[in-house]
């Protein structure tokens, strides 16, 4: 079970002793803390940080097979199905821990959600409101794209080939952005020191905004084409 110990960055300070057997601290050292009491093996209140939960370094590049393996192993240990006949409090911790496990798996396995999570936890603002700022290099193309979309909305289907062409160009742009993101992830993970990492994160934030903007364009054209039955 040692591989399932988790780093206790946010170990709940109000529970230094085991809630069940009263022995304490429930974990021999502040870090890493286990999900379970080292004396009586009872489930302890879970930590909320996803990387800590999965006992993973705070990296933006992840081995997805490894992540899935840990997800299955932790599910076996924490799932409420395993605690049907446990005490009420342990059942509650099991529910909370499994919710964090599932939420964390969902976020960490998706590169974009993972990056957004790291940004948010590092105090960056990644709100949707920035999607209105058109990336300067796309200004002209987006202008024409919007014109064509308006024409499609008013029933002119002759613009469909032009829209499909724009769509293809956006999709290849997305692929390019994803490669760019990968490179930045590697740079972030290799960066020495907090400041260096923050500098990379700031660049990643901009790339993600651009990506979100382009994705919305693709989604919009798909929606309009479906609506027109084209």
């Amino acid at each position: 079970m040692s591989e399932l110990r988790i780093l206790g960055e946010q170990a709940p300070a109000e529970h230094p002793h085991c809630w069940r057997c009263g022995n304490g601290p429930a974990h021999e050292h502040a870090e890493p803390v286990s999900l379970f009491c080292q004396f009586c093996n009872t489930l302890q209140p879970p930590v909320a940080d996803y990387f800590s939960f999965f006992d993973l370094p705070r990296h933006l590049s992840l081995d997805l097979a490894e992540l899935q393996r840990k997800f299955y192993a932790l599910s076996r240990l924490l799932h409420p199905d395993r605690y049907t006949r446990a005490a009420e409090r342990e059942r509650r911790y099991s529910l909370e821990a499994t919710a964090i496990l599932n939420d964390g798996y969902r976020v960490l396995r998706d590169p974009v959600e993972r990056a957004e999570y790291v940004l948010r936890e590092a105090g960056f603002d990644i709100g949707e409101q920035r999607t209105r700022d058109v990336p300067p290099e796309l200004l002209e193309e987006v202008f024409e794209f919007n014109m064509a979309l308006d024409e499609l909305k008013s029933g002119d289907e002759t613009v469909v080939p032009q829209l499909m062409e724009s769509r293809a160009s956006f999709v290849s742009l997305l692929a390019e952005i994803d490669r760019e993101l990968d490179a930045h992830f590697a740079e972030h993970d290799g960066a020495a020191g907090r400041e260096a990492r923050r500098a990379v994160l700031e660049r990643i934030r901009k790339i993600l905004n651009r990506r979100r903007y382009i994705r919305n364009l693709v989604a919009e054209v798909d929606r309009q084409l479906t609506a027109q039955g084209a």
Partner: protein
Amino acid sequence: MGTFQIDFGGAANKRIVGIDLGTTNSLVAYLDGVTPKVIPTPEGDRLVPSIVSYTDEGVFVAGEAARGLQIQRPERTVYSVKRLMGRGVDDVRDDLKLLPFQIAEGSESVIRLDLGGKLVTPPEVSAQVLLELKRNAEAHLGEEITQAVITVPAYFNDAQRQATKDAGRLAGLEVLRLVNEPTAASLAYGLDKRKEGIVAVYDLGGGTFDISILRLQEGIFEVLATNGDTRLGGDDIDERLMAIALEDIATEWGENLSGNLEAVQTIRRAVIEAKHQLSTLPKVAISVRYGGRVYQRELTRELFEQLIQDIVERTLQPCREAMRDANLTPEQIDEVVLVGGSTRIPLVRKAVEALFKTKPHTELNPDEVVALGAAVQAAILSGDVQDQLLLDVTPLSLGIETMGGVVTKLIHRNSTIPASATETFTTSVDGQKNVLIHVLQGERELVKDCRSLARFDLKDIDPLPAGMTRIEVRFLIDANGILSVTARDLRTGRQQSVEVKPSYGLTDEQVEQMIRESFERAEEDFAARQVREARVEADNILSAVEKARANAAWFDLSEEERAAVDAALNGLQMAYHSEDHRLILDQIEKLDAATRTLAESMMNSAVRQALKGTKI
């Protein structure tokens, strides 16, 4: 702090049963060693019809007994009640066209069926089916059953799940888990096969359709995506056939029977039988006898397939969507498992095979596989099965109402459950003391197109200038797919009180009230039965004494003895109509004592007569 132990009150070795609470039929199963088994009824049937009747005597009967009353007492006999679970009357207008039930006034948030004056909610009706299954299980296993796993359609929303849980409580069952039907089926399928890979479960039941796609790996059953339609099933097929039969009869007999409940039930039986036969025969005869007349017509499988083509088509779009959500193509699906009686229809099998490009498994009994899976899940919960684990998903996105009637999604559909989301709310007016949060379920953008779940009222907020208060609200969907909400004032760290107003379904208080009433009713019923039994006993002794007064032995008694018997006889006749069974039993005893000499002398003379070889 000292150590302490928790007493589990013997719960540790209590048996948990698995229940498939179906639209048409229900089953109960348990794990016998390593094999899941269906528990038969005392009559030996494996399926219990999901039919409940409120009899003229004022008691509920369920299952086969209720099925027997379907034709004589159609207005008091409920079937397909699953279609009404967790719904308001506006949701079920279409369903009600198919169902001959009277709906009482005020059924907006919970439907109340009027069974000849007796008002019942769908959970109460389902509870009667569950009670029947519980009794069957108790009789078969010889022990009390109080804990169960109950299956629900994967596409059931929060209110429908809650209604099912309420039904369990009303039947005296602690529902330890609600399991999605297709997922349960996959458990039964994967148990003895040790399968690995991607499995699609296609589940076409009596009233609902579900598709679930799972990854089976090392005993983990991970649902990747689920989709469905809670208003699509075998009932719709029956309806098509009914329409044809009713139209034919209207032409042939010159009589429209669609308003005649008794006739409609007779015709329904006939078309269902024809439908079943068409799964193996190329053509069948629909045959109806009613009111001394006979209606007959031939139905070919070809015509049948034309009639139901669009119903089968309607199941395919959810399948495509589920594959898209799981990021899979049909080529990546390793196996397809069929569940539900309607998957016996050859056209359904053909359509499924064409879509998934693989021959579906048909070796499992599609009527039983869900109940068997529920029994496996029950054994997982009891700890008897250790190496399997189900990871299910929520079928519908969960969101809250924001400015302009728009829904902001917090937990997306196909998220593995338990799942949670946290959102911070603030006040918009100075001194505001509460915040109302409207929670919805569904995929659409606008509030009016989604399903209202509940309104959560964050109460007793410290009155502060607008925007100063920050309340963190945590939405948590548990392993049953049911939502709970907790709130915390971020400024004070205090737990914030939340009042829940469910949009559909019963409140906790209502369910508790019903449970109390059913206990009171049980007492009343018990008392009534004791009185009835005492009167039966009184009838016996009264008629025996009446006969004895004509016997020669009566005249052998002394004057006083005869007077004592008459007094006791009179006493019992007086007590006979009392509602207190003890009074009746008391008088029976007195009469018994007063007639002892008489009985003895009668016995002696009988013996003497017998020895003489003559009959008295």
